[in-house]
């Protein structure tokens, strides 16, 4: 058996997290960062070995729970690789950006934001971040439904504590809401996971391996019900209207770093699951559900953008923009054209990068002013030009300015969708206009205009070295991928092509195979 790359990759952060239990004091943070950087290096090494078009790679497969047919099975395809890289990149950035967010209060210091906050200490923060990274990596590489389900559920727990222990004043409420929504999705999916087991057991030996389940002949009605179970869980996690309402609260109450992981890694498990499990396991049901899913996605795009425009809280605003963006991603997945699906995959990466930049830049600004309310800012660009410059850059990336990475993916999603569903694509295009509105209005209110009294008092410094170090890689990646997305596209395209073949759809340009076969 060859070297278990994926196991090592996904376990490494977990080892770091366990060490955080033991290591206390000033050594904890550098150690955690070292672990996340090592994971990044390992992820890059894996990516360099990845052969585009080679199907599922680095496969490890061991029977785990025989009576249940569960396997410990990991594998990597182009879509998984994209998300593994995103996770590995975001984690160290989050750590650098949140370096001082979780400091314990010094004795005698009384002006901590809320009572009870920050008593957990930086080691716990870093440990939870590493846990999320590890579980995310496991989820993105699982090729066994049971294994995926485990990490899909378990990743909720560290995120719950990350919000609940380090967030804002209503963190307990937000964390609880987040966990309950997540658990609801998880339990609904559990019913479907059990259903799959019974179907698979009836066909012979029970097995949860994706490759075994794909060969199953699932009866039409059963398949549709099971699909609904999976889809609801993924739509809650993604999040899609009407399952979205936990997201603005969770984003609002998280620390900036927590919010980055939430929107950048955790929510991606939902959209990833749609491609990997909904489409692969239930091709017929996926085609059947397309009209509903596309409608929900379009509603998400418009509704999320509108709500972002009227948000008064910076974090909440970014949370709503994410809902709008997840609408685009889902739209691209269920439009069933190779262009839109490749676009969606790329979108997942780009959304992770640009939202991370936006959350972090906004977070640096919030930290200085000690308020998340947009109305409390004004004229910041005169006091902290680099900070607002990066905020604007991140905002422009969020609204998909040409030349930045998200433009490529948004264009592909809309272009691909248009070739099959022109109506949906046209409505979704309105989302782009709205995006310009929410980004520019937010920038205008916070950064431009006369410098207000409070801003002059509180915002006394521009970005420091550590903060620039956290944002620099994101800016770099957004620019590079904006002009040179080819290597990634090369890895994603064959995987998407395989998915399309399995679902039984092909691009509308081909006259023979139409949808509804």
């Amino acid at each position: 058996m060859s070297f278990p790359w994926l196991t090592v990759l996904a376990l490494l952060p977990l080892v770091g997290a366990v060490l955080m239990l033991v290591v206390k004091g000033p050594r904890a943070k550098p150690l955690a960062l070292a672990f996340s950087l090592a994971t990044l290096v390992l992820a890059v090494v894996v990516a360099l070995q990845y052969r585009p078009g080679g199907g599922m790679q680095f496969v490890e497969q061991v029977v785990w729970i025989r009576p249940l047919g569960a396997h410990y099975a990991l594998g990597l395809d182009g879509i998984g690789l994209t998300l593994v890289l995103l996770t590995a990149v975001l984690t160290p950035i989050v750590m650098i950006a949140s370096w001082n967010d979780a400091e314990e209060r010094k004795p005698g210091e009384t002006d901590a934001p809320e009572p009870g906050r920050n008593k957990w200490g930086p080691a716990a923060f870093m440990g939870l971040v590493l846990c999320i990274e590890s579980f995310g990596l496991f989820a993105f590489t699982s090729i066994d439904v049971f294994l995926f389900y485990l990490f899909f559920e378990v990743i909720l727990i560290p995120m719950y504590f990350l919000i609940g222990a380090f967030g804002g004043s209503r963190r307990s409420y937000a964390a609880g809401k987040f966990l309950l929504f997540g658990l609801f999705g998880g339990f609904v999916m559990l019913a479907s996971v059990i259903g799959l087991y019974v179907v698979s057991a009836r066909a012979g030996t029970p097995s949860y391996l994706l490759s075994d389940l794909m060969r199953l002949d699932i009866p039409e009605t059963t398949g549709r019900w099971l699909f609904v179970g999976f889809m609801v869980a993924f739509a809650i996690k993604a999040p899609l209207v009407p399952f979205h309402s936990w997201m603005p609260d969770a984003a609002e109450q998280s620390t900036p770093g927590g919010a980055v992981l939430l929107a950048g890694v955790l929510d991606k498990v939902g959209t990833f699951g749609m491609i990997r499990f909904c489409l692969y396991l239930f091709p017929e049901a996926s085609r059947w559900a397309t009209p509903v899913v596309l409608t929900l996605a379009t509603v998400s795009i418009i509704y999320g953008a509108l709500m972002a425009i009227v948000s008064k809280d910076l974090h909440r605003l970014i949370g709503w923009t994410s809902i709008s963006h997840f609408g685009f991603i889902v739209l691209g997945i269920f439009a069933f054209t190779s262009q839109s699906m490749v676009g969606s995959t790329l979108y997942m990466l780009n959304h992770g990068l640009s939202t991370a930049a936006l959350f972090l830049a906004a977070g640096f600004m919030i930290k200085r002013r000690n308020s998340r309310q947009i109305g409390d800012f004004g004229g910041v660009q005169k006091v902290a030009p680099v900070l607002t410059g990066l905020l604007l850059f991140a905002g422009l990336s969020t609204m998909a300015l040409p030349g930045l990475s998200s433009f490529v993916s948004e264009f592909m999603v809309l272009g691909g969708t248009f070739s099959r569903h022109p109506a949906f694509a046209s409505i979704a295009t309105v989302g782009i206009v709205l995006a310009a509105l929410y980004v520019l209005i937010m920038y205008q209110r916070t950064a431009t205009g006369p410098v207000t009294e409070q801003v002059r008092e509180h915002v006394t410094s521009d970005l420091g070295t550590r903060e620039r170090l956290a944002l620099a890689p994101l800016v770099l990646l957004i620019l590079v991928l904006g002009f040179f997305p080819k290597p990634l596209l090369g890895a994603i395209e064959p995987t998407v092509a395989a998915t399309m073949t399995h679902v039984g759809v092909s691009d509308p340009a081909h006259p023979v195979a139409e949808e509804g076969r």
Partner: protein
Amino acid sequence: MSVLSSSVAAVTMEITAPKIEYGTLMPFILVFLVACLGVLVEALAPRTLRFGLQMLLTFGGIVVALLITVLNWLTGARGEVAVGAVTADVPTYFFWVVLLVFSGLSFLIFADRKLENGALAFTPQGAATPGSAAEQEAITARVEHTEVFPLAMFALSGMMLFPASNDLLTMFVALEILSLPLYLLCGLGRRRRLLSQESSLKYFLLGALSSAFFLYGVALVYGYAGSFQLSDIAVALNTSDQKDGLLLAGMALIGVGLLFKFGAVPFHSWTPDVYAGAPTGVTAFMAACTKIAAVGALLRVFYVAFGGMRWDWQPLLLIVTVATMFVGAVLGITQTDVKRMLAYSSIAHAGFILTAVTAASQLGTGKPAGSLSSISAVGFYLVAYGAATLGAFGIVTMVRDRGGEATLLSSWAGLGRRSPLTATVFSLFLLSFAGIPLTSGFIGKWSVFAAAWAARDYWLVVVAVVLSLVAAFFYLRVIIVMFFSEPELEATGAQPGTVVRPGWTTLTAVGVGVVATVALGVFPGPVLALAQQAGEFLR
């Protein structure tokens, strides 16, 4: 099957000396014998030696009984024994092993003398009026009720006989053997004695009533089938020329008696009061072991004897199942006392277990080859739930204030910061109850829901899944209180609970709970395989 039962009938006709398979029955006999010896120790041994002797007898007896059970399981001693009074089949052995292990663990919680400064957590003198001078005298003289050990062993022997009984009369006797010592044990709390005695009385009155129901049911079924033997009843379902009314009424009454012990709605109302009032060790014993014995008996009676009537009992049991899950999960949310919360949690779990019982996946055509049967699913669930329950109650004994155990939820506020390890361990048990993956509770939920799904009870699975979420909410609340809340003591008048380091016995019980919860969550394979072996009753 009919050959077997007719041959048994022939044996009983001839009135020869009954043949008793002592080897097969030895674990049960041993436990009973140890209990009798324990009584002698109380009568004859000097006070200073009693605790040590009782410990030796109790745990020695349990270990030896466990070894013999395993040996019998492996050597394949199967069949009806003691003239058809008891069935020794794989489910019997499975239940015996689980019962012996879990009762051993709960007796470890009984045996803790460190938490109460060198005395057991039981009242020094049960006969003394609470608050009287006699009580004070007994406390200062450091008198101990070491009788709790033989009492608990008597209860255990009843629990072992209960799911193994092959005729309804034996089952009734077992029911009484297991119940009477429990009534007594409930009333022996050291602190809050009035509550403890109240719980004892409540349990006794309601328990006696339910026993009467059970006995009446047995009589009616005898009237219908002309036999107490489960296999004879199964045959009579097809052949008897009696009216069905006798059978249906008898079946319902027997069901009431069993569901009462199991704590299913609408026969659950004793559970919160008794669980909260009884000494915590006894609560743990009841929550883990009584449930196992009761569901074992329920499965055996309804699958072996009334299996042919499942179209009649399934709809009713379905209603009970949904009601049990609903009441346990919803009322659990409003609880402000940890022990009462755990009591409602145990009701909710009874409901989840019943989803598999109701499904009866091996009776119909529902069970696909190679998958878990209802009995296997229930068996695994009981192991997972029992381990977490024992651990959780073990933790409850450790969180204390000046008045003893601090069971008010508000005095647990901020425990996560005062004693992070204890709070984390308790959270682990709560997460297992909630069915979060990588804990044993998840695999347990998976198994029972899979059994229900296999029997095509799709909507039952959906309801169960939704109610799992409601139940998860109240476990979550406790975690929030422990980790994210500041103590608000003025409002409730509670004192902050602090963790007192218990003796090694309680630590062992909690430790085993932790290990089992994690191990069964990550590597459930071996125990699932054992449960799978116990997938079918011998008929």
